[in-house]
Structures are given as C-alpha cells and as structure tokens.
C-alpha cells in the first residue's frame, strides 16, 4: 500500500466534491434541513387536544370536572354544545377529537355515592392518538373521582382517610416526554445513511460512466488504495455532519446531551464504516449512477426510516418485521444514539449495540474491498 497513491486519490476526490454543487448541498444543507423539518414538523406528542363538551347538568360539580380538563395541558375545551347531535357533528367535522358528555344527574348521583358514567367520544381515525386521548381522559377523570370519594368519606366522618394506592409517575431520561429528544438522534441516523451510502454510491459508478475508470485502472494503484482514498473524504464529511446535527439538536432544539462526545463520535464512526462500505459495494456492482443511487436509498434510507425504531417502535412491530430489524444496522445506531444523548451511557454500557455494528462494519468493509477488480469486462 502506498500513501502516495492513496493521498492522490483522496485529494482528487476532495476537489471533485468541492466542485460539485449537488454534493455540497447534500453535505451541508441536507442535514440542517432534515433537522429543521423533523424537529418542527414531526411531533409525536399529544398536547392541546381539541375537546367539545355537552354538559347536560351545568352544575357546580360538572363544571369542576370540566375545569380539570381545561387546566390540563393535554386538552383544550374549544366548544360547549347544548345538544348531542351538535357534539357528534363537531367530531365528524373535525372541530374536536374528543367529545365529553356529562349526564343530567351527575351531581345528584355523586352525592349519593353512586357511580356515574361520563361519556367520552374519541375520533379514532388515528388509533395511536385515540389510545393516548383515552388514557389521558381516564387519568383526568380518575383523579377527579378519587377526590370525590375522599370528600364523601370525610363527610361520613372518616376524616384523614387516604386513597390507598396512587401512582406517582416519574419519567426518566426524557422528562418532558418530548418526541424531539429522540427525533434528533433519528435524523442523525438518516443523515449518516444518506451521506454514507448515497454519496459514495455515485463515486465508482461515475468513473465507469465517464470513462475515467479505464485510465485509473491502467495505473499501478491498488483496489485497496482506490477504496480508502475515495471513502476517506466521505468519512470525514460524515463525522462533520454528525457534529453539525448534534450542534443543531443541542443548540437549537435544546435536546439534552448527557453522554460524552467521544462516545458519540466512536459510534458514529462505526456506523459510517457500515454505510460507506455498503455504498461503495453498490457502486462497484452497478457501475451506473442512477441504479447505484436508487439501490443505496432502498438499502439504507428506507430501513433507517422505517425499521430503525426512529419513527415506529420496534416492540410494536409484527414479529416477522421485528426479526428483520435485527439485520438493519440503523436499528443499533438509533438505540445507541438515544442512550448516548438521553441516558449518557458510556461506551462500556453500549456493547449490546456496538458489537452488531462492528460485525456489520467488518462484513461491509470486506465486501467493499473484495468487490472492486482492476479489470474491464
């Protein structure tokens, strides 16, 4: 292996990237745009659910219950109806996602210690959201109900009585329960996948298409030198984009970063080796820029998006799909990044995710090295 030749290839590759506006846009603008797009556009949180109420009683107590909904940040009472069809109409038209109906004998039945049913109509066009609305509704009503019961017992002369069990929920690692906190690591995975595989998938294919490969292979340069010289600049770009994404995430979106920067870079470097190797391999095999870029997107971008646990929780996937995620390198990287960002895990605690990535890196590196032959066909 000659450093002379390796450096010559790397230098040439850097010049070509610098002169190619498309590459520059992908390198610098794409990470920032993806960050902003996902940071602002994708929110998996449920807050301020528009709520309509049909209070058939209009008593002090029914108002108390509604105030609790009003006070919660999860609900916004947007309208009060005075008949049932109007409430149904509001849900149908999309004015609200939750309709609450308080019965006409609400306070009377509470006063006698009976059970009252409050009707909740939920727009379940999106089942995930509907589930969340239901559980939040149950939580608000449950709290109200417990207070009413305590009150009732007290009036019966059993002061000092406590509700036997309460749940004191404490959320760790993502205290605000904000989806931004795990969207940022997710976007980083996508950026790495695109930089690593998409950009590199063009490099070898371009040389075949433009005919420059014939001159290149007529020189004494070895396949290993070609590969390292070509991938080196993209590796540096990949790490630069890691830093860029982390900076936007931490600085702009205020995502907590509890880990160590070195952990972030070591794991990013490992994931980059996987995607760079894959992109190079695809490029060598297809010898055609269009085919190579398509294949690279299908092989990296889509799995990183759908199967990495970034947008869809892996635990909730059907078993066969869940099995497939085990061969998606992005899956391990997403989980790694979440741990580094939110838990602050140091490297030794991340071996479960690191070793599969290392195996992928080894496989892809070997495939890439062996695939390129200095012969015309």
């Amino acid at each position: 292996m000659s450093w002379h030749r390796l450096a010559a290839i790397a230098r040439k590759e850097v010049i070509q990237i610098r002169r190619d506006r498309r590459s520059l846009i992908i390198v610098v603008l794409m990470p920032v745009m993806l960050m902003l797009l996902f940071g602002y556009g994708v929110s998996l949180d449920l807050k301020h659910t528009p709520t309509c109420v049909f209070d058939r009683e209009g008593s002090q107590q029914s108002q108390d219950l509604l105030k609790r909904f009003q006070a919660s940040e999860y609900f916004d009472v947007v309208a009060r109806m005075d008949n049932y069809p109007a409430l149904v109409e509001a849900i149908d038209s999309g004015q609200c996602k939750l309709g609450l109906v308080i019965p006409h004998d609400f306070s009377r039945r509470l006063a006698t210690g009976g059970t009252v049913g409050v009707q909740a109509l939920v727009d379940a066009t999106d089942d995930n959201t509907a589930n969340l609305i239901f559980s939040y509704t149950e939580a608000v009503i449950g709290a109200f109900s417990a207070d009413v019961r305590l009150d009732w017992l007290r009036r019966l002369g059993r002061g000092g009585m406590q509700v036997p069990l309460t749940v004191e929920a404490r959320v760790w690692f993502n205290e605000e329960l904000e989806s931004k906190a795990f969207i940022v690591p997710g976007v980083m995975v996508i950026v790495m996948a695109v930089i690593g595989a998409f950009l590199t998938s063009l490099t070898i294919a371009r040389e075949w298409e433009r005919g420059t490969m014939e001159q290149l292979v007529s020189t004494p340069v070895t396949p290993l030198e070609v590969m390292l010289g070509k991938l080196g600049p993209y590796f540096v770009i990949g790490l630069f984009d890691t830093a860029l994404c982390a900076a936007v995430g931490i600085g702009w979106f205020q995502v907590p970063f509890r880990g160590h920067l070195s952990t972030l870079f070591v794991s990013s470097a490992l994931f980059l080796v996987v995607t760079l190797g894959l992109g190079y391999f695809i490029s060598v095999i297809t010898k055609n820029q269009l085919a190579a870029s398509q294949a690279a997107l299908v092989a990296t971008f889509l799995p990183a998006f759908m199967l990495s646990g970034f947008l869809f929780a892996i635990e909730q996937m059907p078993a066969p799909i869940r099995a497939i995620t085990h061969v998606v390198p992005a899956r391990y990287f997403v989980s790694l990044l979440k741990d580094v960002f939110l838990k602050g895990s140091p490297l030794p605690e991340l071996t479960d995710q690191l070793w599969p990535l290392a195996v992928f890196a080894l496989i892809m590196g070997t495939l890439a090295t062996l695939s390129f032959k200095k012969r015309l066909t």
Partner: protein
Amino acid sequence: MNRNARSVVVEGLVKRFGDFTAVDHISLETWPGEIFGFLGPNGAGKSTTIRMLCGLLRPTAGRATVAGFDVARRPEAVRQNIGYMSQKFSLYNDLRAIENLRLFAGLYSVPSEVVSERIQWALEMAGLTGRESALTATLSGGWKQRLALGCAVLHRPPILFLDEPTSGVDPISRRQFWDLIHQMASEGVTVFVTTHYMDEAEYCNRLALIYRGRIVALGTPTELKQRSMKGELLLVEAEPLGPALEALQTAPGVLDAAVFGNALHLVVAGAAAAIPAVRRYLSERNINVARLEPIRPTLEDIFVSLTTRHEDGDKEQSQP
C-alpha cells in the same frame, strides 16, 4: 532499459467474448525506441489487444509479456512500466489541467523531488504553460490529447500504449502529437500506437495490419508495400473513366483495376511491358489517355489489396 531486449512479446494471443473472437492468435514483438503501428478498421481488435497488453483484459489464450512481465500474471508490474492513453478521453474533466497531472504523478509514485520538474515538462510538451489552471473540460481536443499524453508519461515509462490517440483532433494538432511521439521514441521509448489513419501509419517504424482479429501483414511500411502487392502499380488518368475501368478489368495482363480518386490504379505483372500494351488497348477503344505511369503503392493500396484477398479467402473457405 536494455535496448537489445524486446519490450513487448506477443505469442498466439486470443481474446473471445462469448462466441465472438475479437483477437485471433496474434503474435508480434517490439523493440525499444520503436514506433509500432497497429493499423486496421474499427472493430478489427486493436483496442482489445492493447487492453490485454496493459493488463486490463485477461487473454483467453496465448501469452504476452510487456517489459519482461507476463500481462496475465503480473499486471501490476506491467502497469508500473507503461503509459496508457485510452481511445476515449479519460482524464477528469472537472479537474484543472495541473490537478490531473498531480493526480497521475501521485498514482505513478513519481518521487516528490522531481514531481514539479516533470509536471512543468509535461505542461510545456502539451503547450499548456500558462493554462495549467484551466478546467480540463474547457480545453480543446488537441490540448486534451497532449495533456492525456503528459499524464501517461510523467513516470517516464519505457513503453507507451496509445489507442487511437489522434482521433477527432485537427490536422495541426495531429502533426504536433506525432512529433512528440517521435521525440519519445528517439529517447528509447517503445511506442505502441493504434490508428486507422493511413497517413499516420506511414510515420511508424513497423506496422501490423490487423483485420477481423488477425494480423494480415507485418513489416516496415516499405516492406509491406513491396511484399504485399502481387505485381506493380500503374496510375491511369483516362477520359471517359467509367468505360476505361470496364475495359481494363477484362484486359489481358491486368491483374486488378480500381478507382482511386479521379484516376485508376492498375496492378500488372510488369510495368515496362504493360504500359505500351495498356495505351494501345485503350486507344483501340477510343479512350483518351492523359497520364499513364508506374507509381509506388500507398498503404491504402496495400490495405485494400490485403483485405480483399482475405475476404475472398474467407468466401472460398466458407463455400461447401
């Protein structure tokens, strides 16, 4: 390199692509300082041969050594000793001229203490001094060609393979390019060059005529002209030309007659006896003879003569 050692040795080289035989048992050898021309029409197997000699294609059968190294077994050693210019321009268009030179200096591991001197020399040779920072894409054909040659010889290879180096280049640039080739050959470099320009073939020290993958003749241009004609060549300018050709094709003592420009070329057994006979034959048929004289055959004559003979041979062979 030892001037007395053969620089390229080819023995029974064959390349098949599926059922198609692109190169069919060719053998040749070249010596240092020699300009060896590979002449033939498109698709004759010239590029395929050169690519095998550069280690870019694996021969189906036969053997070839370049600079003493077997092209199939030691392609890397071969590549260190050759410069190659492919038929299609294949430098990086998005690099500046000087960046292309630096790249190939690096790829050929030119020692760092002589890099700038060699690059300067290549720029001068290509006539690019002062334009070194022009993007390669913006250079005209002749400059591109000379830049490609410059890139191929930065490491001072003893053997140079040029695959149709002057195709698509204007006549003046072609002339300049051949001057460079002669200069390198005079310094002891073996130049192996393919072309389909007959006039360029005349510049070569030795020639191989290749047709349908086979070498149909090999020798110096003069040897080829003497050896390959079945007789002597006469030039006839006659009026009217058409009836003259018709008449001469069946005339006694005329082996072959063909139109060449606005005249006829006749192949006859002996010029001295044929000239008065032809003159008499034509005047008997009321055809006016303006000029009738023996001429030296050009390579084009040779090529036409050899390939038609070959095609006739093929036809005879294929007949049941």
